[in-house]
């Protein structure tokens, strides 16, 4: 499972993980994530697909309900347990290395599983 941690933490990914980690049990649909993380769909969906492939994010279809006023069922995304763990780790590392220049800090303590 070391491949999972090899996800490179980019700015947009960091924003998505922050939003999803704010409440790990919450279900997010695509437009919701786009709005809260302020990302265009062309960045968000490939990222979600990659996270899903790596087992960090789970997707499930909304059960059809009566009170949706004819709205088609949505697909909801949620962090998996592994995803929560990896996201916390990566965000903590990003936070700890944020004040110093990243390159110097990364050389001292590289992210686990990163290819550096």
């Amino acid at each position, binding site marked *: 499972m070391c491949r999972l941690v090899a996800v490179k933490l980019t700015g947009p990914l960091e924003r998505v993980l922050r939003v999803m980690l704010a409440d790990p049990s919450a279900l997010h*649909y*695509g*437009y*919701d994530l*786009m*709005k809260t993380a302020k990302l*265009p*769909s*062309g*960045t*968000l*969906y*490939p990222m979600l*697909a990659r996270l899903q492939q790596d087992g960090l994010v789970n997707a499930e279809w909304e059960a059809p309900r009566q009170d949706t006023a004819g*709205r*088609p*069922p*949505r*697909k909801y995304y949620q962090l998996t347990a592994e995803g929560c763990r990896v996201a916390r780790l990566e965000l903590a590392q990003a936070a700890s290395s944020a004040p110093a220049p990243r390159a110097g800090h990364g050389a001292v303590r590289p992210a686990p599983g990163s290819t550096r």
Partner: protein
Amino acid sequence: MSPGRRTQRIAGWLIQAICRRLPADVRAERCREWTAELPAIFDDQSIRPSFLRTLRAFSFCVGISWTTRQLSKSARAASRRSRNAQWRTGAMRARPPELAVRAVRGLLIWLVVVVVLLGLIALLRTRGFPPSLPVLFVLPLAVGFDVFCLADIARAEQVRYLHKWAWVIICLVQAPLGGIMYLSIGHIGRHPSRPTSSGGPSGTIR
């Protein structure tokens, strides 16, 4: 029908058209997912005035188009990887990317052998030897090579592209060329049934 609903339908068609680019196994699901996002965009009260929502929906479609390109690219890469893996483990139907290269390489090897042989005959003829002499030497080599190929076919659990018998006939009829072609195309180098250590190349233990 209100203008909002109409543009929503147009955006839905657009998404459907964009989704055609995706591989068939994920197309319908992705299309449903993205079409289901459209009502949320068109009902988003935080975007004012309302015509900006239409713009937002169409920029959403542009992003979807980009996404489908990324997804189909990675799907193609994955299928190429699995095809290569199948080819290495000897699946008959797997189409290797380098088949033409292998065939040309086999032909080149054969050409080199023929040229060397003709050169040898010409050289020995200038020295006064009869042309039958080098053939006498080469013939056992060719027969040995053919026997080696036939033995390889007989021992192999599986050969590629053709039946074992077809490869035997090719080896026998086109004596050196058939054998070379078998080795470069039909021969499965690694035994698929033999367990290799943790997927690394067999025979190299580090």
